[in-house]
């Protein structure tokens, strides 16, 4: 089975991704992670204005069979939350890098993004 790993994103060993856009970055979980979890039924996320910290929990994703903590790839302030996930948590399965995004965060230390795994490094990890 092969999983999508977009080249333009950065990754955590714990299977979260972040974009590297100017301004706020987008955060979600990977295609591999959603497949491991199976049918996602519930997502718990922080609110706009909350602070998240690199490597620390920022929320929870639950599938039918498992509960999994979400770890933030970046430190910063939450600028947007994907509220569609509250009614349609299955978007995480259907489109993990697109409509299944979770947060937008204004990073306090943009250089820290470079220390995350590249797409190639993450591919090595999940193979």
């Amino acid at each position, binding site marked *: 089975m092969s999983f999508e790993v977009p080249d333009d994103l950065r990754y955590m060993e714990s299977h979260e991704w972040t974009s590297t856009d100017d301004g706020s970055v987008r955060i979600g979980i990977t295609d591999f992670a959603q497949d491991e979890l*199976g*049918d996602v039924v*519930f997502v*718990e996320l922080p609110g706009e204005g909350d602070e998240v910290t690199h490597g620390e929990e920022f929320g*929870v994703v639950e599938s*039918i069979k498992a509960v999994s903590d979400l770890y933030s790839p970046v430190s910063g302030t939450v600028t947007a939350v994907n509220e569609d996930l*509250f009614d349609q948590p299955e978007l995480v399965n259907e489109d993990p890098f697109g409509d299944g995004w979770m947060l937008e965060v204004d990073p306090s230390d943009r250089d820290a993004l470079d220390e995350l795994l590249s797409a190639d490094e993450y591919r090595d990890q999940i193979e």
Partner: protein
Amino acid sequence: MALRKPPLRAVHDGRGAKFTEFGGWDMPVEFDSIRDEHTAVRESVGIFDVSHMSEIRVSGPDATALMQRLTSNDVTRLDPGDSQYSTITDDEGTILDDTVVYRLPLDDEHDEDDDPTYLFIPNAGHDEQMYDRWTEFRDDWDLDATVDDVTEEWAMFAVQGPDSPDLVGDEAGSAVLDLSKFQATWADVEGARCLVARTGYTGEDGFEILCPWDAAEDVWSAFDCQPCGLGARDTLRIEMGFLLSGQDFDPESEPRNPYEAGVGFTVKLDTEFVGRDALATVKEEGIDESFVGLTLLDRGVARAGYELTDEDGDVVGHVTSGTMSPTLGEAVALGYLPTELAEPGTRVNVVVRGREKRAEVTETPFLNQ
């Protein structure tokens, strides 16, 4: 300890299943998606490999006496080909395991004048414990019965769902369509002699099929329908409020008697069995805690081990099983509450990661069948 493997471990792996350890066995938990597998069983038909279930055969002149004294239900009510749900209790009346007891149907070698032969199905990983229990009590009581652990001689599949009669009738012969609930018959599937029973753990019409271990692949392949893993088996049984051994009761971590666990109907106090006297006292005095269904009113999922609190925030019970119900789209759970809070409609809270979520005691099955 190495995990025990069902005969079709490699076949399931080739089909892309994900696996999980359950009761010491390496079993498929998900083939495609728990939701899709669940829906197939509710709306059409699906097949489960449940070869991790134990099988113990009891035969000989005193087989009936031995079965009667070690299970809470009344085996003398079983005609050949009948089965019953039952519990196995200790001296205190605590459930050690729950099981289905089959009185095997007649065949060419067994007629009505022969002593009954029984096959009972303890849960995964309980075969050795139950074999020991049966043989020790047999010897203590000086009974003439033969006890065999045949767990690794029989594979077991469950074909479940509203379309299962068509499928099983085609493959096993139309005689299986005449079976009532909890009846079983011998039938040939792909040339293998199987025990086909109208039993299951999903709440749907369906069949459980015991087939010889070495015919497992032929028999499994004969039923062309959605393969389902233990994940869907769990969501289906939770929607029905069915107990899971080792989780909703367990002699060590969740000691419960059949009345507390909501299966008092399996207790026949007019029979003699281990635990009978203790259970007679429980029945007379009533139970302090009861097994209940719960529906969450707030967003969230209740899981095994989560605490239940009352209006004042005091811990009054806990969840033993919980999931997001794929059929209802609601979070449902099973657990124990003080009997005075067990009335359907009673408001309690489930503590999810430190936060109270509102829940309501709900009659089971959650589904209106």
